[in-house]
């Protein structure tokens, strides 16, 4: 067994747009998906995540590069000869067949015996809690149930890799959250590699072992949810996952753990953590700090990365209070967790109030400008 369940090496997929232009829907994508991993491809529509998934499934073939499944180059292997199965965004259930027939379809194609089909279909439907629904037609099921049929139909083939193309997109929020946990539990229980395509960052963060953030056909970053959120390696990822304050600046000095950046808008030097690879002294960089990681302080407690600012707006949203500040010529947003239960309006920050803000160097990321 190969170390990687699926590997993409330098994969390019070109499409011709209706206007006749050539478009790299997938642009030199390289990624390695480990066995038994819950791997997500995350990005907004048109970022190439679904096309990448379809090339793994065999519905599309790469224009350049190669897809490997269990170490074997796939070339032009048709879908039905790959040990991967897909759960489609639209579910793609066969409306003219019952739930049982839908799930049995893949086994019939394998030529399994009637008894075995019965046994395995019952097992698969049990896994997704649809026992007793065998004789229903897909139209007689709710959206969530149809989704489960699609999962059972793919899993009954015991694939090496299960590909899921935004499988929860059509469900309402509550059901989606339930299904997220169920799918994750199912994946852990079966130990099958899941490759999950989604545009919902919360979904990706909740479910995945690792995430590939994609945009414009390129992989922006691959990492665990914590790595992606805490150490985004470029401004796109920092902006796409969660929220960030960004300041443009010039890199003044650089060591392994510390980067000094002159930020004109703050009229000061900021000390931060060099995150992007290949930073060069003197180049233009972006300083990024998450709003919940900025500290508001009355008194100056640090000699560096401490700034005075004026509050321009505050928004109370229950769990947090969002505080918007003008700091020098820069705008800064700060999310303060409401740790203490209180009602007195005087205990909140007020507009016009002068406060100090601290940007802790370990929370202040220095990223290569794109």
């Amino acid at each position, binding site marked *: 067994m190969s170390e990687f369940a699926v590997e993409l090496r330098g994969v390019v997929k070109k499409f011709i747009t209706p206007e006749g232009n050539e478009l790299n829907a997938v642009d030199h994508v390289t990624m390695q998906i480990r066995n038994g991993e819950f791997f997500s491809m995350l990005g907004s529509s048109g970022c190439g995540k679904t096309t990448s998934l379809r090339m793994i*499934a065999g*519905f599309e073939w790469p224009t350049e590069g190669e897809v490997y499944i269990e170490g074997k180059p796939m070339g032009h292997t048709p*879908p*039905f000869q790959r040990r991967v*199965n*897909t759960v*489609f965004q639209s579910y793609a259930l066969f409306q003219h067949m019952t739930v049982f027939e839908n799930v049995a379809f893949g086994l019939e194609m394998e030529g399994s015996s009637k008894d075995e089909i019965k046994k395995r279909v019952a097992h698969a439907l049990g896994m997704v809690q649809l026992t007793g629904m065998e004789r229903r037609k897909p*139209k007689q099921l709710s959206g969530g149930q149809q989704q489960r049929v699609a999962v059972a139909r793919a899993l009954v083939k015991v694939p090496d890799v299960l590909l899921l193309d935004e499988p929860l997109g059509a469900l309402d929020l509550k059901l989606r959250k339930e299904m997220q946990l169920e799918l994750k539990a199912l994946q852990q229980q079966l130990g099958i590699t899941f490759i999950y395509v989604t545009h919902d960052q919360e979904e990706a963060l909740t479910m995945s072992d690792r995430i590939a953030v994609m945009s414009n056909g390129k992989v922006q970053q691959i990492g665990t949810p914590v790595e992606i959120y805490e150490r985004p390696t470029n401004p796109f990822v920092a902006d796409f996952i969660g929220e960030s304050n960004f300041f443009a600046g010039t890199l003044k000095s650089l060591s392994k753990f510390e980067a000094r950046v002159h930020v004109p808008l703050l009229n000061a030097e900021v000390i931060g953590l060099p995150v992007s690879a290949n930073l060069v002294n003197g180049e233009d960089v972006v300083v990024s700090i998450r709003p919940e990681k900025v500290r508001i302080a009355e008194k100056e407690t640090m000699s560096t990365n401490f700034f005075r600012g004026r509050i321009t707006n505050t928004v109370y949203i229950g769990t947090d209070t969002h505080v918007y500040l003008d700091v020098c010529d820069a705008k800064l947003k700060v999310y303060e967790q409401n740790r203490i239960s209180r009602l007195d309006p005087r205990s909140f920050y007020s507009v016009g109030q002068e406060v100090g803000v601290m940007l802790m160097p370990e929370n202040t990321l220095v990223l290569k400008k794109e």
Partner: protein
Amino acid sequence: MFQRLRENKSAQGTLLALPTTLWLFVLLIIPLILTLIISFGKRSPDGDVIFTFSMDNYIRLIGYSTDCGGQAWCIDPLYYTILWRSLTLAFNTTVLVILLGYPLAYFIARAHPQRRNLFLFMVLIPLWTNFVIRVYAWMMLLRKEGGINIALGWLANLVGIPFQPLDMLYTPGAVLVGMVYEFLPFMILPIFTSLEKIDTSLYEAAADLGANAIKTFLRVTLPLSMPGVVAGTILVFIPVMGTFIVSDILGGRQVILVGNLIQRQFLDARDPTFGSAASLILMVMTLIVTYFYTRKFGFGEEIVAA
């Protein structure tokens, strides 16, 4: 009053259905009742209808006869032959039209969307020409000195085999060819519609689950396009049962169908009473066939509408 109409959905429905209901009542129900009444009448010597209640026309259709030399009565199979000929022709036409129309509809449905409309347009172009003229065009092609024989003769000459022009016109085959040609678009369009509705991800799902192209077609495409085939069958079978122009022009006196029989009663024999009886029998026969057909396959809407 308009205020109340705006709020009353069922009254709105009634109002919308009213023009068509009136139209159908005046032009379908009343003529049908008249036909029924006339079919029980008798023909006067100068070809008028004498209104009475007589079963003579139906007895004649059954073929019951007392004029059969020696025996007290016998059954004349003439009208059964005509009816059977009509049924088999309608059946054969429908089958051929499905076999020819399905692949074309499939091809159009899977064609690039930009080209799809052009193809559909091409299917519809023949319908711009008058029905009768198109049948005459086939006459030009099929007759002894016609296009097909000229082409065949030229080919035979090229290969160097002696060639006798074929007698194609005024044969059952000519009628079949004409019918298939005339009714092909009515099969292609509904099949196309139901094929076009099939989500392409279903083909991918089938391939993903291990089905090759043939199995995908038999297990997924064909069942999901059956509503189109059923609708097309109804659109083709029923008119073929009743039409008389194709058989009149391409079949001559050789191929007489129920339609020709009825037409001749009204125009040549000037016996509207017998013509009416024959029309009603044709209608009943068609209804019976359609009834059993739709009971087995539905009207072709279940899967699409579901």
